[in-house]
């Protein structure tokens, strides 16, 4: 316990110093365009209690964004993992389709927004854009992970008469799982980058991006910062959840050598 308390205390201290410097800077400048931390807190309480200008609460905005991210993210994982496994196991499929697949990776999801506006509306539009951001990190890390499967581990299973399916589920998947989880964490980051941009592009009344844009038009900086902080916090929490899953699943890597 004593070991874990130290970093927590230090992090709280860092936060306090950060807030103090912010407060000092704000007081020194003394302009409504540099609000103090306390004003952010007040804006947060206002938004949480009575919602925005249209009465839409902060939680509805947050949940709208989170839901879109989760749907697109799930689609990215559900397609990225099997395709990554398939192309990793059958390298010639990947080699033969590489020139089709790879260029897509370099089209940022944001560049798809104009097309997405034409073809989709509502949830499918956002889910599609998030999917584009989430798919490649998962797909690529799965593909690379399959190359890490050691021949001798396959042989261990095959020599006892294992089927191809057994090798896939008991040798390939356990080897690749850490890479998949790492890819999922990168994908989660990419998903948040995309959702804000997509919501800023319009087509919705809900979502943290939308809310921030509304307050931007009203020049209300504290409310915008509340949106930014929430996006950062939700992303952070999601990342921590994935890290916890990793730690639980990969005891065989994380445990300290005795």
């Amino acid at each position, binding site marked *: 316990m004593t070991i874990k308390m130290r970093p927590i205390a230090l992090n709280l201290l860092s936060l306090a110093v950060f807030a103090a410097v912010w407060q000092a800077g704000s007081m020194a400048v003394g302009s409504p365009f540099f609000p103090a931390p306390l004003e952010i807190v007040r804006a947060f309480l206002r938004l949480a209690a009575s919602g925005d200008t249209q009465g839409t609460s902060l939680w509805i905005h947050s949940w709208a964004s989170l839901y879109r991210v989760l749907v697109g993210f799930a689609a990215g994982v559900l397609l990225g993992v099997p395709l990554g496994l398939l192309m990793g196991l059958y390298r010639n499929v990947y080699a033969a389709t590489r020139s089709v697949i790879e260029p897509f990776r370099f089209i940022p999801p944001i560049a798809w927004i104009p097309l997405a506006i034409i073809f989709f509306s509502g949830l499918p539009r956002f889910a599609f854009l998030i999917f584009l951001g989430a798919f490649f990190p998962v797909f690529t890390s799965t593909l690379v992970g399959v190359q890490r499967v050691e021949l*001798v581990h396959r042989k261990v299973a095959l020599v*006892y*008469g294992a089927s191809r399916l057994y090798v896939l589920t008991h040798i390939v998947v356990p080897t690749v799982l850490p890479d998949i989880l790492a890819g999922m964490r990168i994908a989660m980051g990419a998903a948040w980058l995309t959702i804000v941009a997509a919501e800023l592009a319009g087509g919705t009344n809900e979502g943290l991006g939308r809310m921030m844009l509304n307050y931007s038009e009203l020049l209300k900086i504290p409310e915008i910062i509340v949106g930014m902080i929430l996006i950062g916090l939700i992303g952070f929490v999601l990342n921590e959840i994935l890290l916890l899953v990793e730690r639980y699943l990969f005891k*065989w890597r994380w445990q300290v050598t005795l």
Partner: protein
Amino acid sequence: MALAGDIVNAPTPVAASVDSRPKVEVDISHRYGALKVHEGVRFGVQENEFLCIAGPSGCGKTTLLDILCGLLAPSVGQVLIDGERADPKRHNISFVFQEPSTLPWLTVWDNIATGLRIKKQPEAQIDAMVADIIRTVNLTGFERYYPHQISGGMKQRVAIARAFATQADLVLMDEPFVSLDQPTRERMQQEVLDIWQHHKRTIIFVTHNLEEAVFLGDRVIILSAKPASIVADIPIKLQRPRDPLSIEFTALRAHCVRLLQEVHVKGGGAATAP
């Protein structure tokens, strides 16, 4: 006295009478593309025999084991186990690999149970067999450890335990002790002999260490350099437990060393037996 005098220099398998058909019959040639690895490697292995195979490094010992267990098809010829073509799905074969082969995401217990699980043994039976073999290889207390938490020697013991946990028709061991220090290696050799004496198995043990071969084997086969063929097939009729310092042991080992040296001197040309 039946010892060094029984040395035979020709690759004549022991089996002669009809009722003692060898457990394993090998007659293969193999090449990787243009690279000839084996040329007319032919021998038999009796049930419960401990056969050691020695040869210069790169002569195709690992490849031979891959062919023996049916993971690799030979370019020419075949391997028969109990008269049927070797097939990991049909025969009970286990393999201790040259490189570390414990599965890092499984505990010691689950690693050892792997073969039994693939063979779909009943859980109760798996538990009994794993518990038994863990006692034999002295891993009691480490059942729930992951491979990265135990030493290299212990990992190799896990791999050996896994190979002996199944009722294998044939156990293949590929230079299993190369990475171990001398005292550990000696202890492991003794452990393998103990397991072999308690749970009778047919073992093919590859090594390039002739002292190890003479210490362990009922018989030692010496391969030439690529393309490999059998240079000598030497029955080791020393009584067990063997004393590596005894005159008979030393003489037999020296004989093997000389044969292997000839192989090295003649290089690739030693394809034809003396």
